[in-house]
Structures are given as C-alpha cells and as structure tokens.
C-alpha cells in the first residue's frame, strides 16, 4: 500500500540518535479503511477509495448515506480515490502508518494556507524595485511582457488571490512512524495549517529506494 490520509497536527523538533535536531511535521495518519475497490470490469479502471475518520450520519446528505449503506461500511468524513498501482487491496482492508518506516521517502499533498490578495513579490517571487534613492517603485510589478502583443498574455504574473491551492511537497523523509498513536513524523514542512487534511504517498521521484 502506498497511500494514507491524515491530518496535520503541527511542527516540532526531534533529536536523532547522533544528537542532531531535525525539524519535523507531525501528521496524525490513519487508520484508514478501504471503502471501495473499483475494478476495470465494473468501473472501467482499477482504483481503490480510502476513507478516513468516522463521520456522523447526521452530517451526511442522503446521497452519501446511500453510498455508505450500499458499500456496507461505517460512514467516513474524508474519502479519496487512489490509483491501484501494483498493490493488492480489497474493500475493508485497514491502512495504518505501519505501511511506512523511518527512512522512507514520501510525497504529501494538501491545500496551502490562504494568503488573501497578495502582490507579485509574495505571489510570484518578483524582486520589486529599489527601496530608497527616490525609486518610487517598491513592491510593484514592473514589466509584464511584450508591449507589441496588443493583448495581455494569459497567465502573466499579476497580483491577486494566493494560497488555498493544491500543493504537493515531494520527497520528504519519514523520521518516525508511531503505530501506537497513529503518527507520522516527516522531516520538513507540509502544505496547510493545523488540522488540514493531507494525502501521503510513497515518493514518486525519490532516488533513495525504500527499505522494503
């Protein structure tokens, strides 16, 4: 199994055995249940749906209640479909942090914190103008491309709403997987604020091979 759903708890440090202090993000991950197994025969493709955190039936609409009833599983508040890959899962399987071990590399997908309406320096890493010597251009956008084009090219860098985007942080090292408390400690930062829902998967691009 390569995937798990969790919630961000916060950040702290961990001292390694050789005394180094490593910044870690603590994620409360799983236990997740395989709610549904999609097959190419029935659905046209192979995938599985993971459910995380029990939901109150009262809070679900009828469509969702019906879906859970049909699948015959306890209602979950977070559902997400993942590609099957080479894993062999059945509906009803439980996924815990035991799937991960210290030293593994993972990718984390989440929704970044909202930054509101921001300028180009924050949003696009623009450099801005000089701060003094009568520059008069401090944090403004300067050039925005071809002046002969007679139109603004789509996707040009302007101020605007920033954050609340889907972001994937690649190749984070697992420092510890605590099965008792369902915690995953990853080196470095992950998208979103506290309590944010995160999808963790085995790293796609990592050159460091997982220790099986």
């Amino acid at each position, binding site marked *: 199994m390569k995937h798990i759903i969790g919630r961000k708890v916060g950040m*702290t*440090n*961990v*001292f390694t055995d050789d005394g180094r202090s490593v910044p870690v993000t603590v994620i*409360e991950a799983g236990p997740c249940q395989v709610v549904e197994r999609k097959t190419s025969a029935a659905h046209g493709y192979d995938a599985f749906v993971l459910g995380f955190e029990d939901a109150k039936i009262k809070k679900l609409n009828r469509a969702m209640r019906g879906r859970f009833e049909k699948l015959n599983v306890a209602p979950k508040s977070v559902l997400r479909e993942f590609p099957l890959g080479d894993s062999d899962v059945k509906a009803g399987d439980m996924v815990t942090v035991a799937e991960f071990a210290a030293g593994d590399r993972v990718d984390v997908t989440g929704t970044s914190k909202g930054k509101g309406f921001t300028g180009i320096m924050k949003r696009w890493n623009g450099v801005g103008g000089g701060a003094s010597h009568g520059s008069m251009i401090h944090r403004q956008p300067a050039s925005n491309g071809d002046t002969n084009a007679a139109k603004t090219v789509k996707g040009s860098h302007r101020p605007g709403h920033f954050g609340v985007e889907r972001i994937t942080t690649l190749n984070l090292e697992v420092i510890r997987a605590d099965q008792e408390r369902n915690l995953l*400690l990853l080196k470095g930062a992950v998208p979103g604020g506290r309590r944010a829902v995160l999808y963790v998967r085995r790293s796609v691009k990592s050159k460091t091979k997982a220790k099986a």
Partner: protein
Amino acid sequence: MDAAQLIADAQKRKRVADFGAGDTVKVHSRVTEGNKERIQVFEGIVIERKNGGLAESFTVRRIAHGVGVERSFLIHSPRLEKIDILRRGLVRRAKLYYLQDRVGSKATRIKEKK
C-alpha cells in the same frame, strides 16, 4: 495537548541548569570523533539564551588565543552532558551582544552578582 507538543515534551530534560546571560559556565558536551566518543569542555560567558520549548538554546563566548570564539548549544540536546556554573554575572540586559564588539580586557569584564 496535541501530539506535536507531547513529542516535544518527551524529549525535554527534566531539570535544566539555572543560568542566564552574564554567567560564566563550563559546558560539557559529547563529541564523536571517528568512532570514539569523548567529553569536550567549553568555558566562557553566556551571552544569550534564546527561543523556547524544545528549541531553546544558549551561546557561550570566550576569548581563545586572542580570538573571540562563540559556540551555541541546544539546551535539550542529548549531546549536552552537563553545565557547571562558575560565576554569576550582574548584567542589565538579556542579550550581551555588545561583548562582541569589545577588545582586550573589557571583552570579558562582567561584574559578579553578590
């Protein structure tokens, strides 16, 4: 308390030596050289104690062979063996960065707390 806080608290040392800026201390820390481990001692004046929680640290400054040397330690680091307090200093501020600009005998001059 959330899990991150619990993880941090579990790593904290139970008793932290009571010292602050201006105090002269002897810091015993474990260093690994190759596969041998030994205790290294660093003696000097504490010029700052900063940050909080698990990340709390302090910086010790000494003049070695006429050159100012500073070393920072994480208070809760497992590599820190012990801290001896040799002298309590009487200082008026929490961060003694002004010592960094001093040369000669004034560089280490701090009144003793009576």
